[in-house]
């Protein structure tokens, strides 16, 4: 079974530029998550989708971050414009169903450096 795929793996941009990350969840997984992991900290949820609808985006900085999940499969996360403090690893995860005990499977992440 293929895992969660993410691209690119690494990205370096200058502040005020735009950047987009892509995630392909495990086939059949209805729930998709985007996390931000700043160096030295645990992941923090940015947004959660159930199929193509947003379940929770309370911690997404909506003035600069946006995300979509068209057709309930792939998802993209965009930052526009980027700030220095956005330097982090962006993790995508998916799970089969939307329950508290369901296992979340994580992708390898995209490491973003903002100069």
């Amino acid at each position, binding site marked *: 079974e293929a895992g969660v795929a993410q691209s690119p793996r690494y990205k370096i941009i200058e502040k005020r530029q735009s950047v987009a990350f892509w995630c392909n969840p495990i086939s059949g997984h209805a729930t998709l998550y985007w996390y931000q992991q700043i160096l030295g900290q645990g992941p923090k949820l940015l947004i959660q989708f159930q199929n193509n609808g947003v379940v929770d985006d309370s911690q997404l900085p909506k003035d600069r971050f946006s995300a979509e999940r068209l057709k309930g499969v792939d998802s993209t996360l965009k930052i526009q414009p980027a700030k220095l403090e956005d330097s982090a690893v962006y993790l995508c*995860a998916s799970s089969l169903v939307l329950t*508290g005990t369901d296992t979340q499977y994580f992708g390898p992440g995209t490491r973003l450096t903002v100069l």
Partner: protein
Amino acid sequence: AQTVTQSQPEMSVQEAETVTLSCTYDTSESDYYLFWYKQPPSRQMILVIRQEAYKQQNATENRFSVNFQKAAKSFSLKISDSQLGDAAMYFCAYRSEGSGNTPLVFGKGTRLSVIA
């Protein structure tokens, strides 16, 4: 809001020995789930073990086991017969019970080194 605290930023263990990683959490809820995730240097995070709060029996997965103390809000991970491949960041995480519309709340992690 729930919080998860991992008080050991770094730990080390000799190969084949046993190590315990600590985790405490703060919540007013009675039903919830607790998890330990492992993040190797390649950064792909994987689930190690999970515990449902309503279960009194501690979860076990091969060499990994937990000591769940609900009253003390403590959830430690014990790794027996440590192997070089166990070297990684370990994150403790909490998730509320409910319809599923609840995020995982992670601690800051413990970096485990395994010494040959």
